[in-house]
């Protein structure tokens, strides 16, 4: 297990390093950063001065390591638009996104895993059909439309929930449902397929032949094996929610990191975009790392070779 963890950690670190290099290179791919910083009216001399001041004239690798060193220390540069520290900016927006992401993935898992299990126990039953219907809906409904419909129904007509903002937990109910429901179909289908497959295996027959109670057969012997691929999927979904909830954050005016990313892209605010890409990628890498560890814990064949 220790060896496995170290190996995974090493791999994750390498991926993080690669991502950081790409994210750093982004600044140079789009345009000359000195020109961008100086603004449209600046003279050639001004641009040259800025280039010297910010060290853009140095070799790219030197600049990268310099940038990396500062990034590790938490300094991601200054936003062109807000003129404040990017790390402070992101740090301010992150809690909202985290809150939304955690509640959405929790909702998605609590909604889809039991439904997937129920559908697998009785394939082609009413429950299975309902589950299929719900998952096709979830896959097909555009989140912006679903969000607007919820607002019309729950806020405008029934006056149950606030339409936008992030002041109380009530503000998070609809965004959670919209974002979670978007992720639910894949988790549900994977749980169902996995359970169906596992339930037809020889070791489930053995468990029944041992006289184990149906609950034990189902939840100890079957789900434990069926859930392994679901863990990996949920980790990716969660990463996606932390980075890509732009639509949902915009509709419900939740000023999270996704919203910030969208703002910064439209404003050409490269340091912020760069910082956000780095942070989102790190989320993905950390999540994948933990998903790998969780899988190894669930499946001894990964852990002990």
């Amino acid at each position: 297990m220790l060896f496995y963890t170290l190996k995974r950690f090493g791999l994750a670190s390498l991926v993080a390093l690669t991502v950081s290099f790409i994210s750093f290179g982004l600044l140079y791919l789009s345009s000359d950063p000195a020109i961008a910083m100086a603004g449209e009216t600046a003279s050639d001399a001004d641009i040259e001065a800025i280039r010297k001041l910010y060290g853009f004239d140095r070799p790219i690798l030197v600049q990268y390591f310099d940038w990396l060193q500062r990034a590790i220390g938490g300094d991601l540069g200054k936003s062109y638009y807000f003129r404040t520290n990017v790390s402070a900016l992101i740090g301010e927006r992150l809690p909202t996104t985290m809150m939304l992401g955690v509640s959405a993935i929790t909702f998605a898992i609590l909604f889809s895993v039991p439904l997937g299990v129920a559908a697998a126990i009785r394939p082609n039953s009413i429950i299975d059909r309902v589950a299929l219907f719900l998952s096709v809906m979830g896959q097909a409904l555009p989140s912006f439309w679903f969000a607007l419909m919820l607002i019309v129904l729950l806020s405008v007509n029934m006056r149950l929930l606030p339409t936008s903002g992030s002041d109380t937990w009530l503000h998070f109910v609809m965004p959670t449902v919209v974002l979670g429901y978007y992720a639910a179909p894949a988790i549900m289908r994977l749980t169902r397929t996995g359970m169906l497959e596992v339930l037809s295996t020889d070791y489930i027959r053995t468990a029944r032949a041992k006289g184990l109670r149906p609950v034990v057969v189902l939840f100890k012997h079957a789900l434990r094996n069926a859930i392994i691929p679901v863990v990996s999927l949920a980790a990716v979904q969660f990463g996606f929610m932390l980075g890509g909830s732009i639509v949902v954050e915009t509709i419900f005016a939740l000023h999270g990191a996704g919203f910030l990313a969208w703002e910064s892209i439209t404003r050409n605010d490269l340091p912020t975009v760069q910082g956000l890409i780095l942070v989102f990628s790190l989320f993905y890498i950390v999540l994948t790392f933990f998903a790998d560890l969780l899988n190894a814990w669930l499946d001894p064949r990964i852990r002990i070779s």
Partner: protein
Amino acid sequence: MPDRVLEVKNLSVDIPLAEGVLHAVDDLNIHVDKGETLCIVGESGCGKSLTSLAIMDLLPKKAIRKLHQLDLAGTSILDYSEKQMSDIRGNKMGMIFQEPMTSLNPAFTIGNQMVETLQRHRNISGENAKKTALIMLEKVGITAADQRLKQYPHQLSGGLRQRVMIAMTLLCEPELIIADEPTTALDVTIQAQILLLLKELQSEYEMGLILITHDLGVVARIATRVAVMYAGQIVEEGTVQQIFENPMHPYTRGLMRCIPVPGKTKPGEPLGSIPGMVPSLIGEFTGCRFADRCSHATDTCRSLNVNLRAEEENTQAYRCIIDPKTMAKVA
């Protein structure tokens, strides 16, 4: 009457398919006494495995089981609910499967899977259950048993896993064990060891044992009685001596010609084979099911349903109307 462990009367298994109903097992009667080994032989698809699953009430959902009598150790379990059946499974009767590689759950240790079986049926502490499991592993010839308890199935070889399966099945000291081709997936050398082990344990615990196999060599070594199955029916049933020394049914005779006999079969001489294929069992079937592959078959064979019957008190029962004397001439 000796202690009867299992009595099955008029067992049928039907599987509804799109093309019609598949009569996979037809009107089957078997019984097993204490300390006795009943071998059920037959080729793939003849209904041997379904028979064993039907006794355990573990048939696939779509299969329909019909039975007139099902007694385990003198108690009728025919009308038992699923809950009552699960109290018996792994407790009073256990099953060993063909595939040791996939029959144990990969996610749990051997110890975990053994202890859960014991704790399901016995009011026993985890500590004591572990001790019992350890003793049982040693009994089936597993060395360093305390370490094996902590290992996962994938860390064990096929032979070891099958020993674990046997140990697990024996934990609650069942009256009856059904072993469905327990050695088919194993190396030949391991096969012999496992069979020997089963035989030893059976006499030690005085269990009834049903061994399902298509290997006549196995049957000759381990069986007390033999039931030969063909296309869902028992076509011949008797003691191992009766069946091997004086097979009566043409199918059994055909099977016997397929095995080489040391000293009798000349080198280079082709072994016997049974021409043709098993008939489809979908829909109603009239006449002898073996008729199309039988060199003695007459028109009567194809139109008459014959019951399993013994000619005298002490001979085997078989399902054929041809006079054995004429058969002997042709064969």
